[in-house]
């Protein structure tokens, strides 16, 4: 007899893990991208100021 409660737990755990992992990665990559772009902008402004 199949344990449907366990099966449901396995599926819910899996779906939540996948969306959580990739969702957090989405936020982290967005944040890093923003920080990198800010850094590049600051460097470009500094270089323009030196000219």
């Amino acid at each position, binding site marked *: 007899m199949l344990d449907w409660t366990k*099966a449901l737990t396995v*599926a819910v755990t899996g*779906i939540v893990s996948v969306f959580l*992992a*990739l*969702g957090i*990665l989405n936020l982290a990559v967005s944040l*890093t991208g923003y920080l990198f772009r800010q850094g590049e902008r600051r460097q470009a402004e500094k270089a323009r100021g030196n000219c």
Partner: protein
Amino acid sequence: MDILAHSVQGLGIWSLSYKNVIMWLLAFILMYLAIKKGVEPLLLIPISFGVFAANFPLTGLTEPGGLFYIFYHFGIENELIPPLIFLGLGAMTDFGPVIANPKTLLLGAAAQLGVYAAFFTALIIGFSIPEAATIGIIGGADGPTTIYLSANLAPHLMGAVSVAAYSYMALVPIIIPPIARLLTTEKERAMVMTQMRPVSKGEKIVFPLLASVIIILLVPPAAPLMAMFMLGNLFMESGVVERLTNVSRNELMNIVTILLGVGVGSTMSAENFLNARTIYIFFLGVVAFSFATAGGVMIAKTMNLFTKNKVNPLIGAAGVSAVPMAARVVHVMGTQANPQNYLLMHAMGPNVAGVIGTAVAAGAFILSIK
């Protein structure tokens, strides 16, 4: 005289059964598909030859100490080869499209819904939970992950699930278009996406580290695949270890592909393969791929309701990993709807995100079942 009698008795032909011959025929079909039709030849040729050679009687190839046993036991059962394949994949993957448009990661996650649709269908048909999980992962369209999960949860299904996974990966151009067309309007398919921003080298170097931290902390059993995937990518993006990058994506990848293919093929004995469950597995593979495609498209459409920068919903279909074929199929569909449309790079985002998503789904299965 005794020696002669013993030698004659030892001839393989006396032990040959009709089941062996059926497995040879199956091997020849796979060889035909690989050689004449170009269906995943890099994998299907070693797999089919593995099936062919393993089904000769009295060879001892698959018994403890036998050559194929060694390939299987030390390479696959011990989970060595799939992570090495991931190392090579990492050294070939450009995460630029994902970094430029990170929300495509969610499309890669959505495509994993196919894994769970097939998981439940397999349970209803009568498979056990570990078997259903192994079958479900076919929907991720990722061969090494399928083999990795099978080695962990249901080694007896490895031959059938891996052949199903690789066969359906090759059928992506046939499976994706009707489903994607059914779920999108002509106007949606014709949608032109804005050009992606350029991604700096620094971002590309940070990405594998960031992805490792987040994914491995959340789903530790995904570590062998994720760690090697990201290491390979770091080799490539760092730009300072060209030798390691090249060996990972060329020589090492080729060697382990041979061992993987032959090892998997050798598990396909007549006893293991010739049963109704194999047919169910192939049927469930279609369920998995179809729901994976639908999941990606539907989440893309849902995302468009809430975000400013809309995406062409077709790119959601590329969340079915099968890199880069799924992205190419989506690109062609987009061009058919609007010749000005260039979706290839946009579709590569969900495509590579799908590889990460499938590894996470496999890790989650191991975490909750094993």
